[in-house]
């Protein structure tokens, strides 16, 4: 017989819970110190989308994002978690405003870091203009928070990945952790295929999608700083590691990031496939990377090194 839930330590529960499968609420509960989470604008306040009813669509009481504060290894953190199963975790007016408000609060306080658990397809099409505006407001609030000394860490490993405006916001973060099923991009596979044709990108080729946008590739090209195995405890440890790693932010760092990206484009711009990039990075048997178990991949990624000490 399996042990009843209350006999299992929070760390064991977090270790055995898939980040990908868990709901946003479960992720937060297991990511933070047990019992420390306090929600802002909780579901009982019913701050749902004002737009969805016009389209005769169901609302969610928290509009698909949970914001609040809690503790991570004893230290205070602000947190936001998107629910990728509600409308693909997409940004609407209220959803976006909750994240903007959280980042502004973090800027005002200055010393408390922010963790964003992305799980989003981008802007909610039913509230397109409000959603696009929300993305712009969040990016500004995020950069202002970072300028005020706040560390903003993105954690990406949900079923909707991190696409569209979510990909832009992730690009503004101090550092990112990603798992294999997490994907980071702006245009999604279907969008690219629709606009540029199947020869440019075959969205039905799942191996191609993961090889190009998935967590392993994002870690190897330096778009994400840490690779996490798909469980909540690994993401918790990744968040702690990144909070210790992120240095001060300013113009120098932005210039270093610009140089890093220009170098990356120079080095790999001619590659036709992610496997070519990995080979160019000096990885032997690059074609085997997608099959590597997490521990072997992490060892490989650590040999490649990471970028965030001087850039981002």
């Amino acid at each position, binding site marked *: 017989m399996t042990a009843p839930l209350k006999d299992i330590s929070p760390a064991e529960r977090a270790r055995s819970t898939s980040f990908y499968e868990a709901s946003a*609420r479960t992720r937060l509960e297991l990511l933070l110190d047990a019992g420390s989470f306090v929600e802002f604008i909780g*579901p009982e306040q019913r701050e749902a989308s004002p737009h969805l*009813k016009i389209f005769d669509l*169901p609302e969610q*009481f928290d509009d698909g994002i949970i914001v609040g504060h809690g503790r991570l290894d004893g230290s205070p953190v602000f947190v936001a978690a998107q629910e990728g199963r*509600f409308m693909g975790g997409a940004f609407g007016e209220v959803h976006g405003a909750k994240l903007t408000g959280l980042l502004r609060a973090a800027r005002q306080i200055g010393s408390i870091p922010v963790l964003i658990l992305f799980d989003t397809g981008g802007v909610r099409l039913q509230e397109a203009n409000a959603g696009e505006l929300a993305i712009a407001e969040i990016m500004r609030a995020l950069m202002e928070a970072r300028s005020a000394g706040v560390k903003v860490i993105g954690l990406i490993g949900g079923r909707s990945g991190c696409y569209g405006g979510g990909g832009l916001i992730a690009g503004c973060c101090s550092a990112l952790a990603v798992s294999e099923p997490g994907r980071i991009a702006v245009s999604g596979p279907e969008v690219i295929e629709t606009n540029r044709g199947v020869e440019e990108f075959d969205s039905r080729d799942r191996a191609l999608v993961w090889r190009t946008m998935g967590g392993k590739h994002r870690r190897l090209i330096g778009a994400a700083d840490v690779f996490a195995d798909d469980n909540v405890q690994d993401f918790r440890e990744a968040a702690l590691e990144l909070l210790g790693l992120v240095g001060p932010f300013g113009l120098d760092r932005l210039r270093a990031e610009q140089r890093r990206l220009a170098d990356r484009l120079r080095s790999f711009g001619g590659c036709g496939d992610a496997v070519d990039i990995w080979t160019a990075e000096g990885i032997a048997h690059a074609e085997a990377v997608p099959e590597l178990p997490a521990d072997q991949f992490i060892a490989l990624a650590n040999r490649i090194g990471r970028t965030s000490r001087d850039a981002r």
Partner: protein
Amino acid sequence: MEDLNFQHQVRARAGGTRQRAIVGVVASGNLEVLVERSLPDAECVVDIKTAAMGFGAVWSAVIGDFVERYSPGGLKFSINDGGARPDTVSLRLAQAVRLIAEAGQ
């Protein structure tokens, strides 16, 4: 969308002291249940907003069975439904009662 409302007289007050709990996600074939301890001990109210039209009789049967089984006195349930099947609805309602009966605030 269709709005439904059910009010029941209940035998006994629901256990626990927690003021509210939430379970589930609004997605296709799924629903969220927000439960709040906000009513007199002998009453139970269920408010439903559902994407599936014309299933009032099924909801009535599922809610009636749930109230009979769990005696959720004093609880108000607010449901956003993405077209869940009756068994999923029963499961979420049972989870909500269990969550609000747990220790905590």
